[in-house]
């Protein structure tokens, strides 16, 4: 009987968070395509604009903030379905829900892992696109920082859509429908920050707004994500 006691080892939230984060990062690094595909997509979408509209440097410099931001947004959107899909399909998500751990923390860790494997590399790669689109060098800092903060918000909001649609066979297009309208404020302030950087205006205000959205997202989104995942799995 002594052997069958419960709670043989308490698991702290920090340990839980880092365990989930480590596992998801490990999974992404084992499957390299998950890591690289959004980046290639990001690059390709940005290439379409000079080809589709005009290679004129002044025009491209004008639209560059918006184009880079829209491309980053679409690349994030494309990778959203993967946040919960494979865990749902192989039954891992059931086990997570049946473990006595707060689902919110698990979800936040998964979003963090998603951001580290998509948003972070996208932000780091964005100066390359900036150069291709003739964005002035002075705006690169604003571009990278706004993307660093903004893509985390995109991952947080997107995970809500991913959680809601994970139970459906074909959730891919539906996610976009659910999530895109919610992305608009991030897009506006994100590209606004880059435009301000181009014009040589102070960035702090924009970044503060993005940061406020991030803070709000970190507090509220895990609630919605965990509710969504629970609904999809236990439905």
């Amino acid at each position, binding site marked *: 009987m002594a052997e069958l006691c419960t709670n043989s080892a308490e698991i702290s939230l920090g340990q839980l968070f880092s365990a989930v984060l480590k596992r998801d990062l490990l999974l992404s690094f084992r499957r390299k395509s998950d890591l690289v595909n959004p980046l290639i997509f990001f690059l390709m979408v940005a290439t379409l604009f000079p080809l589709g509209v005009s290679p004129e440097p002044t025009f491209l410099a004008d639209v560059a903030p918006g184009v880079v931001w829209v491309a980053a947004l679409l690349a994030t959107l494309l990778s959203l379905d993967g946040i919960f899909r494979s865990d749902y399909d192989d039954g891992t998500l059931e086990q997570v829900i049946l473990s006595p751990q707060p689902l919110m923390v698990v979800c936040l860790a998964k979003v963090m892992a998603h951001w580290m494997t998509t948003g972070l590399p996208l932000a780091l790669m964005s100066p390359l696109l900036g150069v291709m689109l003739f964005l002035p060098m002075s705006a690169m800092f604003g571009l990278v920082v706004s993307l660093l903060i903004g893509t985390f918000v995109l991952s947080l909001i997107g995970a*809500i859509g991913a959680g*809601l*649609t994970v139970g*459906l066979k074909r*959730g891919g297009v*539906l996610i976009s*429908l659910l999530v895109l309208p*919610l992305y608009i404020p991030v897009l506006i302030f994100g590209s606004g920050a880059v435009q301000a950087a181009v014009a040589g205006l102070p960035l702090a205000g924009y970044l503060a707004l993005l940061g406020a959205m991030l803070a709000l997202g970190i507090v509220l989104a895990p609630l919605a994500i965990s509710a969504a995942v629970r*609904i999809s799995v236990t*439905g």
Partner: protein
Amino acid sequence: MAGSNWLPRWFYQLASPRWCYDITGKLLPGFLIAAVLLLVAGLVWALAFAPPDYQQGNSFRIMYIHVPSAILAQSCYMLMAIAGAVGLIWKIKVADMVAFACAPIGASIAVMALATGAIWGKPTWGSWWVWDARLTSMLILLFLYMGVMALYAAMDNETTAAKAASVLSLVGLVNIPIIKYSVEWWNTLHQPATFTLTEKPAMPVEMWLPLLVMVLGFYCFFGVSLMLRLRNEIIRRERRSGWVRELITSR
């Protein structure tokens, strides 16, 4: 949920589909009469009697249909999200049905607000579509409605669909103020506002009184349409209960 006895009795009565079906049946005629009277009076007043705007002339009359629809589209979203939250928290089926019924009405009213706004833009700005802050927010609101409806359509299980759509509409509700603020801010950045459609300084009484009548008429009409859809949903989902069977056979 057990233990929450602080809620008034009518709240639990409302939770009974049958009671809800009966009470909406009694309320419907009253709302219908009120809606028809208010809307007809408002329409005649707005079209024939209200004075034209000194700047926009008679195209200003579009406001009497654009503004009420814009207001209603937003309130409808709020009702949908709140009903969804009630359904989610207290597991009240009727609240889920209300949320479900709200979505198509709200979406169609948002389409109305967009169409009338776009048409109004033609004589005012000279083009059928302008990226005006209010119109853009309304377009995004329509997208939000469409997302909720798509989610309902994609899910087979009614209870799961109701829960999922409630979560989505609550997320949308939190986002609406942020969206509105960001769009307004974006608008001032890109086209310094020279002329907005409705935010006029101090509208005279003979202009806003018909507007008030129209707004009230729209709300009453919304009540009618909501109750009609709600009653359909109640019958559909309670089709196997005794009272619905009796109701069907008695017809």
